């Protein structure tokens, strides 16, 4: 069964909001002017941040990869306490269901978009030419973002949400 992307986006809208929030947060941290921001809308893209020119690779890296960090952390922190009673004792509570939906939705939108990857690639190329070690190290990551973006066709981004929201807590709880 093929589910249209916009329906999945609506069902997981908190993830889009947090994704854009993370972009904006890192823009603010790195003093990049934010010209326009849309946290969620029904359309493509479902959200966006229009920011000013970025002049250094570290800033470009943080602004592009910010959602990956923030969404993943939020996903894990929200899902861990919600998943514990279910994992260990099969106890199902409405709050847990709500938090799991919230956490996994956020995790599903952790991956940087193709536009983020393009921005990062552009900066990585420029900075690598100036022998910026972070830019050189980041090349495989940029390639990975591209690959992941291709694999989103196979729902890899959504699988990632489940991996961080359910898989990681399972792994941690089994190690206690």
């Amino acid at each position, binding site marked *: 069964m093929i589910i249209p992307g916009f329906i999945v986006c609506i069902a997981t809208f908190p993830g889009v909001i947090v994704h854009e929030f993370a972009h904006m947060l890192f823009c603010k941290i790195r003093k990049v002017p934010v010209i326009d921001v849309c*946290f969620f809308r029904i359309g493509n893209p479902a959200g966006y941040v229009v920011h000013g020119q970025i002049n250094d690779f570290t800033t470009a890296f943080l602004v592009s990869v910010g959602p990956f960090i923030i969404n993943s952390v939020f996903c894990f922190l*929200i899902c861990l*306490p*919600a998943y514990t009673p279910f994992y260990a004792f*099969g*106890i199902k509570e409405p709050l847990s269901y709500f938090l799991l939906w919230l956490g996994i939705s956020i995790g599903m939108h952790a991956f940087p978009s193709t536009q983020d990857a393009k921005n990062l690639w552009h900066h990585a190329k420029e900075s690598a030419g100036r022998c910026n070690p972070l830019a050189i190290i980041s090349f495989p990551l940029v390639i990975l973002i591209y690959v992941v973006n291709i694999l989103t066709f196979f729902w890899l981004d959504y699988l990632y949400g489940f991996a961080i929201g359910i898989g990681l807590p399972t792994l941690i709880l089994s190690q206690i």
Partner: protein
Amino acid sequence: MINTTCQNCKRTIPLNDTFKVQETICCTDCLEQVVKGKQTGKQQPQIERQTDPTVCFNCKFDNGHQELEKIINLPVCKKCSDYFENRPFPVWIKLSLGIVIALVIFAFVYNFRFINSIYKIKAADKAFLIGDSERAYKLQAAAAELVPEEPGIGLVSSFYEGGYLLSRENYEGAIDIFNKCKSLNPELIDYFIKEALIGKAFNNKDYDAFLEYAMEIHNQYPNIPMHMASVASAYACKYAVTSDNQFKEKSLEYIGKAVQLAGNSEDFKTYEQRIKHRLHTKEIISGKEFSKRYPNGWKEP
């Protein structure tokens, strides 16, 4: 503000209201006409909106003839530039973030008892495996208290408590507790109940019952040397009180089979010595008493 002239209708208009169609500047009204004139076949000419560098693109502030600073090639006044650089998060975002953080903290605090319970259950399992049934049952009981909605934890706690009472030779107590948690694993619990019944029968000097239960366990698990030795022990008790040689022969028969299976197990050797001591002296003493009297073991003279 910069004004310019539409090259089509010759009107003077603000630069922001004009377009550039392949080097031709035109106003909005003339745009369609100019585009049609430049069109070659199906190919559309390139259209570009003109930007006045002296008018802020955001608030339309007019800076006279002085150009404004640019952000991504768009003229921005000082006020808007400051706003973009320090753009605040919308109130609803802050509010939502606050609610989510509060929910996460609440969920962590509320569900901490589950994490704590898992930790205690795992520690209880470890304690039980190394034979520390007292610690096992105390940890498991604490875990059960933390998650009262899961009765299974309490059943395991009762099972560990039964094991603890069994190890303390409180057989009556162990039987009571084991009966309460039978639903956990009926076969396993039945086995432990029989072990407790053997202990109880031994303490009550009811050696017929001792033999009956020992034989039941042996029939259930025929290849376990300790269970064979238990039958041998029951026969030895019966020999000690009756002096009937057939019981002695039976005891020796079972202990002989058990020795073949047990190999060099230290625990088994002590048990074997106790049974042989019983057959030799016709004196029935407990394991504790035997260890106290013969700390270095007993050998048949």
